[in-house]
């Protein structure tokens, strides 16, 4: 493996700055790595060789002329296939959008282009971001670079695996119930779900509009901060985007990396631990907590009693919104169109017949399951009992957060209850699959930001576990301060990044 591939984006930016590396060479190295390992990992649904190299060449030229667009100018990036991209197919992992090339860029994609980041391609995901394993992709699963028989998490398994397998230094993900953080945890990478409204959702193909958020997927906390600052901030095209400046995230990460957390109050959430959590995951969590205490932090236990209802609440609100969002996929304007040969009524197929046949053929089982759930829950006579009730519980969860943040500056928990499970293991048991997002979902329901970073390898299986930090809305900088401090302490303990212990994957066969 080419040495530059293991460097962080911040380090790569320095190498580009000193002229030791060009963007073209770096981008080519990533493309070569993709060519070498992606048949086995399957992190990408589409690779844009020509486009990425052209952008890299343009970046090198800008650098020669001294007019760089951003600190990350020339650093290649992978983009989750749920974000629309001009000229690049966008499928959302679904057959129903196979071959669709959007005529417009998502705001975050436009910001990447305007900052000079070559886009390597689009990464695999559970269909319409519905899943925790990337097995629900209509284009086949992504595999965990730590163990190719295991899942990389989901829905953003492609972005996490691409970063973990050194195919890309940076990636964008989206997080509705944990789709950035849980893949981060099980692949030993860093993932951040920003404050709701902190990053534009314009051009993010919505699963659940009130929960979705775009965020960075990287190998280091500092890289996430760099990317987050670049994509964050108000967007007039997204009414829910917050019209306030993004906090100084990079500065917070750099300050945190000094390892001093004196006076920081860290709240451990009682409800997010214990039963249902793998022993090795809990052990790594405790170890990280001890390191924080060693750095001067004070640990308090906080209770968030409504969190026990978070999963149920999520599985009402999310399908309700999703069932309505996915109605637009009807074969009338774009995407798959299936014309049935014979209609049940004997006449030529009507628009309704085409819609029905297309949606039947184009959506996978998990998507259909959630459309049915959401349609049912919104039905007249059930609305109050389901959607209405879920909104009330959502308010209670927000209040639990408010009370907890009165006692602690940040809240912490394991990111996911287990390490990566085997492909196929939970495919027939949706409830078991859903339980994987137990610890990540409350943040989405309340709109608060969260980060997951590697806490080490579980003793039972030698697979990565994740440590989650949550902060109050618009206090994303706290995630970076605490995350960077913990990362520095852990890497000191490990003698380097956790991913240095991952299999090299050179010469793997698909």
């Amino acid at each position, binding site marked *: 493996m080419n040495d530059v591939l293991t460097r962080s984006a911040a380090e790569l930016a320095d190498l580009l700055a000193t002229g030791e590396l060009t963007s073209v060479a770096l981008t080519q190295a990533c493309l070569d790595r993709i060519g070498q390992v992606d048949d086995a990992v399957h992190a990408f649904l589409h690779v844009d060789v020509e486009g990425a190299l052209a952008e890299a060449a343009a970046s090198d030229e800008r650098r020669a002329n001294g007019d760089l667009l951003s600190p990350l100018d020339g650093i290649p990036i992978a983009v989750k296939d749920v974000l629309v991209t001009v000229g690049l197919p966008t499928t959302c992992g679904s057959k129903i959008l196979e071959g669709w090339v959007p005529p417009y860029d998502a705001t975050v994609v436009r910001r990447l282009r305007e900052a000079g980041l070559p886009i390597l391609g689009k990464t695999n995901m559970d269909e319409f971001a519905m899943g925790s394993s990337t097995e629900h992709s209509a284009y086949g699963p992504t595999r965990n670079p730590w163990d190719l028989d295991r899942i990389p998490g989901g829905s953003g398994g492609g972005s996490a695996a691409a970063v973990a397998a050194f195919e890309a230094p940076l990636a964008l993900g989206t997080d509705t119930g944990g789709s950035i953080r849980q893949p981060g945890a099980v692949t030993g990478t860093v993932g951040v779900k920003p404050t709701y409204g902190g990053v534009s959702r314009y051009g993010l193909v919505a699963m659940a509009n009130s929960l979705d958020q775009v965020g960075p997927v990287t190998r280091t906390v500092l890289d996430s901060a760099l990317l987050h600052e670049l994509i964050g901030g108000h967007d007039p095209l997204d009414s829910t985007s917050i019209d306030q400046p993004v906090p100084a995230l990079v500065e917070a990460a750099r300050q945190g990396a000094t390892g001093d957390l004196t006076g920081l109050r860290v709240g451990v959430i009682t409800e997010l631990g214990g039963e249902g959590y793998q022993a090795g995951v809990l052990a790594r969590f405790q170890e990280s907590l001890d390191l924080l205490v060693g750095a001067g932090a004070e640990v308090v236990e906080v209770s968030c009693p409504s969190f026990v209802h978070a999963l149920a609440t999520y599985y009402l609100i999310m399908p309700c919104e999703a069932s309505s969002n996915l*109605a637009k996929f009807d074969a009338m304007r774009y995407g798959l169109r299936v014309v049935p040969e014979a209609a049940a009524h004997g006449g030529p197929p009507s628009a309704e017949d085409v819609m029905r046949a297309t949606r039947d053929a184009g959506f996978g089982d998990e998507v259909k399951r959630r459309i049915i759930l959401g349609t049912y829950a919104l039905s007249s006579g059930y609305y109050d009992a389901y959607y209405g009730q879920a909104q009330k519980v959502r308010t209670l969860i927000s209040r639990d957060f408010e009370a907890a943040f009165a006692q602690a500056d940040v809240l912490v928990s394991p990111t996911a209850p287990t390490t990566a499970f085997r492909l196929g293991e939970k495919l027939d048991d949706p409830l078991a699959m859903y339980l994987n997002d137990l610890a990540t979902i409350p943040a989405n329901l309340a709109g608060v930001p969260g980060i997951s970073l590697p806490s080490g390898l579980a003793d039972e299986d030698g697979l990565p576990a994740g440590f989650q930090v949550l902060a109050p809305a618009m206090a994303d900088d706290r995630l970076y301060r605490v995350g960077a401090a913990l990362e520095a302490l852990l890497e000191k303990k490990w003698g380097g990044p956790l991913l240095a212990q991952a299999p090299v994957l050179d010469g793997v066969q698909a």
Partner: protein
Amino acid sequence: MSTVTLRSFEETLEKYDPALGLEVHVELNTESKMFCGCPTEFGAEPNTQVCPTCLGLPGAMPVVNRKAVESAIRIGLALNCQIAEWCRFARKNYFYPDMPKNFQTSQYDEPIAFDGWMDVEVGGETYRVEIERAHMEEDTGKSLHVGGATGRIHGADHSLVDYNRAGIPLIEIVTRPIVGAGAKAPEVAKAYVAQLRQLIIALGVSDARMDQGSIRADVNLSLAPTGADRLGTRTETKNVNSLRSVERAVRYEMQRHAAILDAGGTILQETRHWHEDTGITTSGREKSDAEDYRYFPEPDLVPVAPTREWVEELRATLPENPTQKRARLQAEWGFTDLEMRDTVGAGALALVEETIAAGATPQAARKWWLSELARRANDAGVEVAEVGVTPAQVAEVQRLVDAGTINDKLARQVFDGLIAGEGTPEEIVASRGLAVVSDDGALGAAVDKAIEANPDVAQKIRDGKVAAAGALIGSVMKEMRGQADAGRVRELILEKLS
């Protein structure tokens, strides 16, 4: 189409009380659409005024048009409504090819304006129409069904959709049930829509063209046995797109309901289509409580929370209310109560006002609109405003009369020419050769001819019976095909026979 039995209108009223409900959709004339920056020009090439948002492309998001909210609030205030301090948009979910997202972004249980009223005058009586709500929503695209004889989906071999209209801001104004109008129900319905249209025009928030669909009325009607304390089952007649049709549709549905109820039948709660040509309604889709739009708050939009300061600023921009305005105009014009009532009743108030503004005297303006033009509108089965003559043209015609270029009789021919689109009044006078002849040479010859043909009459005049001159004038006018200056003819006759 099956034949439908109708009760006579009189028989209907003997046994039943009608209850009306009107839902009027007003297309706002904002520069851009409800949730995106696309232009809203009427009649543009299909699918040229679209973007990812109004096409419902994956990932696109809505942003509320502030100008549309402003118009909604002004309409609400003009209808004496409360303005919500906080309200949301909701998704109305149903599948239809002309709806890009397969949900319409509308308002459900939190309308921007609610609990208002409008006083409607019919035949000198005032009916207070209570307004339940006025809410904001987006229009759908327009389907064009090709290959069938009727342009309807039935029998078509394919359909085309134009999304230019998708996302145009609409305000839907919903009345509470209007009861107690009895025989006047059809007129009350028409007068309500007419007056609402005038209000919308005065507010300047819509083109208010019923023929282009910028105002569309849905008419709900039910009958209850006289004296009953609850409403009957209603039907909703969709897209009744002229004032006259509103009246006809109400009348038709009243008579149809009565026939069904008299025969012991039950009214099906359904949507009905209005047929302008035949003046009947036919069954559309059945609308029952089973129709479930699965409304829920639109998560991509933040709530609309107009500050009270803003609402008061907008209140200050409202035009004069119709009652005050009418009193002021009557005084200015010197109309009697009867003249004013007739003018309002004919739907000609704004036309008369504009004609006066264009230079005509109040009496002349009233005369043309309420006699000649009202008669033509009635013959053509259209509203007087739709007769094909503008207030400016009426004022111009009157100017020509005052100048002696034409007389009242010739003016009618000028109106023929205007309706036929032959140009300006002056051009029509020239091209049709309608100018009054006051040239003594031509008139003298015609007078001589008339005297010669009517020696008895001529003798009477010579004998001092001046009143007999009228017969000779008539004869001259006939000879001159009405284009003689009658006053001059009289003078000539008297000169020649003195």
